[in-house]
């Protein structure tokens, strides 16, 4: 035993330090862990995915989803078949939401602009002063800014706040909104109404600048209705589209014209005149007029089943005119009261806020879940004006541009971490339930809002239940559980109203300036910019241009030629003293005299992924011209930028047309199904059938494909497909297992295009297999062509020999050690699907037909002693139009074998004797016989 001597000076100091550290540690809140469980909940089985019904918002509107969690980690989003905004499918934004949850750039804590990291308590203390001031004057000086509010709970809370503080102002700012449509409906019917076009009943549809099949909160519902109807050749109908640049709707059109946005109203006027409106004959080119008259004839002939849709960029009067036309046509449109309104409250606009800020009357500004600094029209200059608020706070997922201008920033919880409720576009309400405890120190909007009403903080769960407490009668708990389970609340769809007879509005005179115009559109991948920091969406090829990691000003070939511009030339796009520099891209089907730019890029504070990518279209927008800019000057800067693309826009010529079979509806009856080619002699071992009797195959209906990319992102999410980043894309590398090709057999002026998703073909005579020196590419007993990752040495001969080029190589350790930007962060790893290997550097990978899902079903079937049931691949489950079908060819009466007998059936490059298992159904088109130029 050592002698009892006093500790030395050093030792004493060391003990003192340790004591202080321990004391400080002991005082902090105990760390709460989410996983692993010490005592696991009874239902939770380790490694077995659990599905929870919830809802995700896009511009405020709900799409019901099933979130799949493994061991408490949400890893995948799938559609909720019961939900009217999902119908069992997803869109790319819903699929990518899972990555947003794990975004390493998410705000983790309350921050104050000067002092940095703070706490909720500190914020509440800081708020108490300004709040007391506004409370004394019944809320005057309190300004709330939110996005579109469809949440009944949030609406109730805002209503409560405004009732308690009647002088407070509530502003709503939604960067991509339907303002013109809303005003148009009000003009036509005299009251706010939301139109729900029924594409399942409309057979002849004319879209004037409208893109119902394009990205948006209603994409799934509209495209499903449209495609399901067209599956019946008798109800195929005809789709006319007049638009400034090619959209997914334009690709599906049977007759399409590139029409300058300022000429688009004239098309509506011609239709209206054909229906007896007696408007002044508009000034329109012969070609466009012939198109409009042909459409008018067709619309009239199909009265009751004809529909006209006006685009979001058209002025409200033209929307009103479209309503008038639709009423004449007895068009299948349902009208409901807008579900995003609070009864009796008309929210103020950002312009009102700017005025109040100028007057210095803003005492307390709370911007909740919105990023107006990045997305407001540039002439509001909100970034500078917000500084005039005496006290300002921003709540958001990211410390974005707005957070950079406010005094305080509060971290919001992600929708997968919080309780809430949301309404779909038809008014159906869903409960939003958390799948995991908030990863960081965030709170939901419901929990933050009471701070501005002087109420004590309440848990979101309680607040949401409070909203619905009168439902379900005596058995509220049972009702609540049922709603949570189903993912929607029965009977909450807005009642369909009789709108009455629309007025023929006073129409503005058609102006057709000579100047160049630029149309701003929401981006098909980043939407309004809120997804700018989502790497999956940044690397998702845009449906038409296939551009990734950036945006570009789309011009027609002629327009670019006239201006001496080539693809990649950076131009200064200036209007009204504001300008952005943006590269030019030449696209087919763009109208003359107009360029199209998508919004959401050029973010300064999006995060490590989204910062500085692309050009910011919002910088050009003004309150007067939010989406269509006129008199734009383009000046060549002399710089060039590479337009990053993952694949080419294929212009069909000669024999490449066999790659994308197109059939005219009239010729469908004579069409014969094309098989997968005669089984020619081959050095490969013959395929003799599968060991346990399955023969997996996929049939993709190109006619149903709207190129929305939901499958691409779903595959990425399901199969741990890494992001490679813009530098790698520039080197020609990518990792997507599934690509959506676009084929155009028309001309640059009049494209006749179609989409073709290309996963692995799982060839019976797979060219990749005999060339692999180490047998890493092999066939399994069920006809699946497999890649054995841990056997692969990386010769890449398989990809060199793959005629479809569907194999993807890890040139670097994209998922494993050499990730792009911050994608190697721990939080991102939590997203990975535990049933799918994360591939190492130097190995080849490719589509597996979601073999993990096949294996799961096989195990379940073996366990239960039953035959295997349906297996749904990730791409198939995501597809809004059910274009992708997967199944077992060997199963008697299997739908997939039936599809192979469809007259539209064909295989890609069957002449190579690869005998692909993935095959296609041809694209259908029903051109108007009166419009010769639409015929091939």
């Amino acid at each position, binding site marked *: 035993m050592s002698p009892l001597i006093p500790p030395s000076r050093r030792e004493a100091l060391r003990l003192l330090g340790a004591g202080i550290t321990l004391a400080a540690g002991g005082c902090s809140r105990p760390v709460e862990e989410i996983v692993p469980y010490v005592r696991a909940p009874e239902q939770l089985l380790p490694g077995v995915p659990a599905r929870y019904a919830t809802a995700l918002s896009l511009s405020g509107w709900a799409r019901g989803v099933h979130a799949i969690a493994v061991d408490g980690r949400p890893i995948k989003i799938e559609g909720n078949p019961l939900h009217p905004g999902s119908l069992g499918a997803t869109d790319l934004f819903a699929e990518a939401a899972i990555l947003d949850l794990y975004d390493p750039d998410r705000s983790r804590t309350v921050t104050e602009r000067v002092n940095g990291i703070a706490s909720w308590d500190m914020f509440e203390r800081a708020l108490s002063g300004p709040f007391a001031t506004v409370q004394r004057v019944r809320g005057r000086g309190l300004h709330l800014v939110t996005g579109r509010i469809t949440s009944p709970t949030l609406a109730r809370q805002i209503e409560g706040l405004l009732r308690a503080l009647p002088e407070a102002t509530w502003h709503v700012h939604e960067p991509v909104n339907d303002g013109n449509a809303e005003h148009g409906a009000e003009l036509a019917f005299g009251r706010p109404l939301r139109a729900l076009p029924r594409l399942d009943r409309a057979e002849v549809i004319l879209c004037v600048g409208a893109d119902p099949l394009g990205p948006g909160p209603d994409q799934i519902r509209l495209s499903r209705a449209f495609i399901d109807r067209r599956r019946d050749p008798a109800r195929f109908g005809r789709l006319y589209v007049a638009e400034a640049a090619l959209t997914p709707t334009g690709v599906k059109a049977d007759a399409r014209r590139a029409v300058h946005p300022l000429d688009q109203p004239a098309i509506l006027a011609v239709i209206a005149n054909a229906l007896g409106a007696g408007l002044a004959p508009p000034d329109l080119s012969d070609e466009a007029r012939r198109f409009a008259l042909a459409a008018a004839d067709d619309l009239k002939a199909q009265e009751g089943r004809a529909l006209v849709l006006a685009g979001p960029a058209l002025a409200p009067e033209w929307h009103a005119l479209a309503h008038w036309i639709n009423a004449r046509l007895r068009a299948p449109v349902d009208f409901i009261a807008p579900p995003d309104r609070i009864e009796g409250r008309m929210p103020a606009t950002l312009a009102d806020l700017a005025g109040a800020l100028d007057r210095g009357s803003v005492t307390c500004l709370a911007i909740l879940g919105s990023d107006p600094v990045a997305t407001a029209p540039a002439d509001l200059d909100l970034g500078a004006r917000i500084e005039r608020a005496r006290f300002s706070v921003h709540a958001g997922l990211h410390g974005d541009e707005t957070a950079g201008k406010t005094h305080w920033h509060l971290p919001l919880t992600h929708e997968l971490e919080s309780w809430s409720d949301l309404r779909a576009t038809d008014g159906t309400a869903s409960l939003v339930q958390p799948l995991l405890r908030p990863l960081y120190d965030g709170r939901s909007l419901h929990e933050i809002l009471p701070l501005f009403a002087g109420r004590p903080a309440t848990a979101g769960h309680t607040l949401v239940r409070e909203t619905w407490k009168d439902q379900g009668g005596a058995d509220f708990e049972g009702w609540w559980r049922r709603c949570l389970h189903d993912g929607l609340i029965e009977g909450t769809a807005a009642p369909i109203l009789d709108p009455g007879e629309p007025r023929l509005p006073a129409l503005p005179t058609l102006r057709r300036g000579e100047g160049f115009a630029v149309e701003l559109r929401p981006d098909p991948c980043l939407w309004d910019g809120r997804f700018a920091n989502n790497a999956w969406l940044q690397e998702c090829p845009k449906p038409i241009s296939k551009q990734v990691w950036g945006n570009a000003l789309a011009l027609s070939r002629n327009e670019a030629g006239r201006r001496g511009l080539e693809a990649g030339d950076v131009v200064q796009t200036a209007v009204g003293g504001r300008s952005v520099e943006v590269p030019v891209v030449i696209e087919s089907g763009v109208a003359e005299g107009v360029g199209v730019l998508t919004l959401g890029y050029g973010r300064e504070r999006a995060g490590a992924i989204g910062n500085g990518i692309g050009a910011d279209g919002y910088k050009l927008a003004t309150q007067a011209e939010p989406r269509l800019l006129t008199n734009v000057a383009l000046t060549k800067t002399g710089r060039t930028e590479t337009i990053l693309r993952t*694949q080419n826009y294929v212009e069909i010529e000669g024999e490449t047309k066999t790659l994308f079979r197109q059939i005219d509806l009239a010729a469908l009856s004579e069409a014969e199904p094309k098989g997968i080619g005669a089984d020619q002699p081959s050095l490969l071992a013959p395929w003799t059938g599968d060991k346990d009797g399955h023969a997996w195959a996929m049939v993709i209906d190109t006619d149903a494909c709207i190129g929305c990319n939901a499958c691409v992102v779903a595959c990425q999410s399901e199969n741990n497909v890494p992001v490679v980043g813009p530098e790698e894309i520039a*080197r*020609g590398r990518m990792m997507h297992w599934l690509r959506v090709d676009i084929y155009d057999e028309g001309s640059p002026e009049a494209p006749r295009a179609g989409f073709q998703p290309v996963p692995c073909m799982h060839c019976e005579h797979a060219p990749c297999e005999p060339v692999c020196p180490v*047998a890493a590419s092999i066939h399994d007993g069920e006809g699946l062509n497999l890649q054995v990752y841990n056997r692969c*040495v990386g010769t890449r*001969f398989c990809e060199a020999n793959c005629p479809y080029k569907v194999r993807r*190589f890890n*040139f670097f350790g994209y998922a494993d050690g050499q990730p792009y930007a911050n994608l190697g962060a721990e939080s991102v790893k939590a997203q990975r699907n535990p049933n799918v290997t994360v591939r190492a550097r130097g190995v080849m990978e490719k589509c597996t037909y979601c073999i993990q899902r096949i294996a799961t079903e096989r195990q379940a079937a073996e366990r239960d002693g039953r035959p295997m049931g349906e297996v749904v691949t990730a791409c198939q489950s995501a597809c809004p139009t059910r274009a992708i079908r997967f199944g077992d060819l060997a199963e008697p009466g299997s739908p997939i074998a039936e599809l192979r007998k469809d007259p539209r059936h064909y295989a890609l490059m069957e002449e190579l004797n690869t005998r692909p298992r993935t095959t296609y159904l041809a694209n259908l088109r029903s051109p108007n016989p009166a419009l010769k130029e639409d015929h091939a």
Partner: protein
Amino acid sequence: MSGTAQPHRWIDRERLGYAEICAAVADPIQKRGPGRAWAIAFLGALPFVLATLAAIGAVLTLGIGLSGVNTTVVWGFSIANYVWWIGIGNAGTLISSMLLLTRQHWRASINRFAEAMTLFAAAIAGIFPIIHLGRPLYAYWLAPYPNTMDLWPQWRSALVWDFWAILSYLLFSLIFWFTGLLPDLATMRDRAETRIGRRFYGALALGWRGSARHWALYESFHKAMAALAVPLVCSVHSIVGLDFAASLMPGWQESIFPPYFVVGAMYSGFAMVVVLAITIRWGLNLQALITPAHFDAMAKVMLFASIVMTFSYATEWFMGWYGGDHADRSVIAYFFTGDYRWLYYSLLFCNCLVPQALWFARVRLNLWALALIAVVINLGMWLERILIVWNTLSHGHAVSLWRTYHVSFYDVVILIAPLGLFAFGFLVLARIFPIVSIHEVSQIAHDEGAAAAGVPKGGVA
């Protein structure tokens, strides 16, 4: 041929005794120091060697992503370099063995370094397939070794055939070269003045005493090896051709590939021998042993190969068109009108047009012109190899994924730096082993009567 300027056809001196031959070859190694030129060349080659090592280190550490390969054009410089270097290696053995079998005595003075060239070129070529892999550390999985997983190579893959072809070729080249070296090693041993030299050469000479029995065994063994070499040379490059031909891709799936690759290899190999012969002749003052007649003969071979290559290209175009397959025609059109068309025109210029100058004896006998043409041919042959890879992969069946190659810095390094490694190998070799075969040149001198005293001028044995 042995005109007035030259007393003997293959010996450029009237009198050239055995001692003189020995001294000419061995003394620079054993008596004289490396010399200034050697030192400068050595120092000049060193950075290239280091660059090669750095590039290999980088690609092993960071991954094959350093190369310009992409999702569509998955092969690139590594493959082209591999085929090119194997091609270079080919001619060495061909010269040695084919000419030995056909009793072309003039080979004596060039076969040694031609064989060394084969050895180095094949060794350098062997590096490329390994560093081109995604996971080079598992390259040995191509070998059929017993393992607990019971896994074997996939024998249908041309890459496995290739693995065996390179391996056997490399081993063969080493043995063939070493066999030819044996009598000279003994000479070096006998002439060595230092203990270390005697030990070193003595160990390598394997007890060669120059007895009649030794010579008899040597002759039959060497001839047998030479007989083996010819099919081996053909097989190695045929198999390299099959790497491409045994595929499904337009522009690769052609039965002409194996012979076309063999001729191409001979073509670039002879060009490289010419460059080396000119350099060595000048560097080691071997004008007496390497004569204009040698160059004349090699130039004729190159001319012949050039015509065969031109014919092969034309066959490729014709068959592409005549076959009628859209993908094939499309690729042929892409040769001439696609992204790499200028490179393709350069290749035709280098391989088909320029060598036609060799019809003229004046050009064949002008070493400057010959060296220039040889370098141009080597450039053209490299272009041919890279374009075989690029054209087909950039313009395959999947139209939406057509894209071009992006040359990276790493690519440039692994293209240029191994040339320095090759030179480095030669420089080291030249300081250790006789760079010209002493015993074979002596035999020619004997045959041509230059060695024996009193044989009349111009006399041929």
